[in-house]
């Protein structure tokens, strides 16, 4: 160790040169840019000094919050019930129709149940919040 530091005149000269530079404040280890980047990224993810104050609701606000949540649950439950009832009705009416068709006309029943490769149409649109510039496509020409 000793040998390596005082090993040559060159090394001694360089040590003397650096010790003359005075740096104010606490000395930080120099970071390579890649390390700095990782530190930056972690600082964005970490919770330190970024969390807001905890919500402390008074009794009245707590009751309000509970009432709102209950009202929402009741509302949703009613919607789901209505939807389920509709689904059940639809299922029963399909079943009923098919059994009726089997009785009335077995040929039509066979035709209705014939396997066919159906493709989902690419033209079908998913609803968006605002309509497109042209809300409906009128110029459709059937395939020949």
């Amino acid at each position: 160790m000793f040998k390596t530091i005082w090993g040559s005149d060159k090394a001694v000269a360089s040590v003397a040169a650096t010790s003359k530079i005075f740096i104010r404040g606490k000395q930080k280890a120099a970071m390579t840019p890649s390390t700095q980047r990782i530190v930056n990224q972690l600082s964005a993810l970490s919770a330190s000094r970024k969390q807001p104050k905890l919500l402390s609701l008074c009794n009245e606000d707590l009751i309000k919050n509970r009432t709102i949540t209950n009202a929402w649950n009741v509302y949703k439950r009613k919607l789901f019930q209505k939807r389920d009832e509709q689904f059940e009705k639809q299922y029963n009416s399909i079943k009923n129709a098919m059994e009726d068709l089997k009785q009335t006309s077995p040929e039509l029943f066979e035709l209705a149940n014939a396997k066919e490769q159906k493709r989902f149409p690419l033209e079908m649109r998913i609803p968006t919040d605002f309509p497109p510039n042209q809300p409906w496509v009128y110029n459709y020409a059937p395939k020949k």
Partner: protein
Amino acid sequence: MRGLSGNLSRVGLVRAYSTANPTVSSTLILSRNPVITADVPKFEAQYYKYQNELWRRLMWTFPKWFYFREGTLAEQRFRQLNKDPVADNPNIEFPRGRPQIRHKRDRRFKQELKLPKTYKEADELEPAELEQAQDTITEDDLARKIVPNSRTTKADQENDLTSLERKLSRTLYLTIQNGSTWILPNFPEPSSEQVTALHTLAEEGLYKIGGEKINYFNVSNTPCHVYNNSKDNKKEYFIKSHILSGDFQPQDKSMKFLWLTKEELKTHLDKEYYQDIEHLLSEI
């Protein structure tokens, strides 16, 4: 009450015996699916607002240093728009509680950020600039303000019931006039020896009355409902399909047709008929 219903059923029985097999027919429920999302009911809108405010209040502070490097122009613009909150000064009384500043955010409240815009709002412009701005705005200018199209269309304002562009947020159903009543298009099975499948019958019938410029998607070949029409001695099997593009152009000039929502169908269709098919129609 009991006597009445007994009478009715007896009438039905007599009819069933007196006539031969009822004619099989195919009824088409042709729907135009919603183009835009459903309107949010008032209660839902209020609840979502409440939840959104709670969520914003509990959000972490925006790590500005990560998105805007110090000393850059972008960071300067961001700083100009987002002024620092009032600092906590021990010599000042704060009647509504001391500010708790962390990373230049008062952690007692939600953080509201403004981002630099590429355009000026109408109220920020000078009158002279306003005229100029209207002239210079072009469709392909990337810096222009994006204004979404209106959710109500021209057809809504004119209350054009035959337009496919009306009530974009609802499902519309095709109804046609049969004599004095409105019905869903119905096509009886031809009386020849050979039978036609219900969905082909519906398709051919639709093309016959509405022209071939209709692009439609038939969901299933199986009927979804059966309606016993005792008046015409008919069995109506319902086939569901969606119109995707094109237009319904009546081939017979005297035929009237409408595109209606579920509620409007209730007022147009026969009461008993509507109650029988009510569950097949979409609320949205």
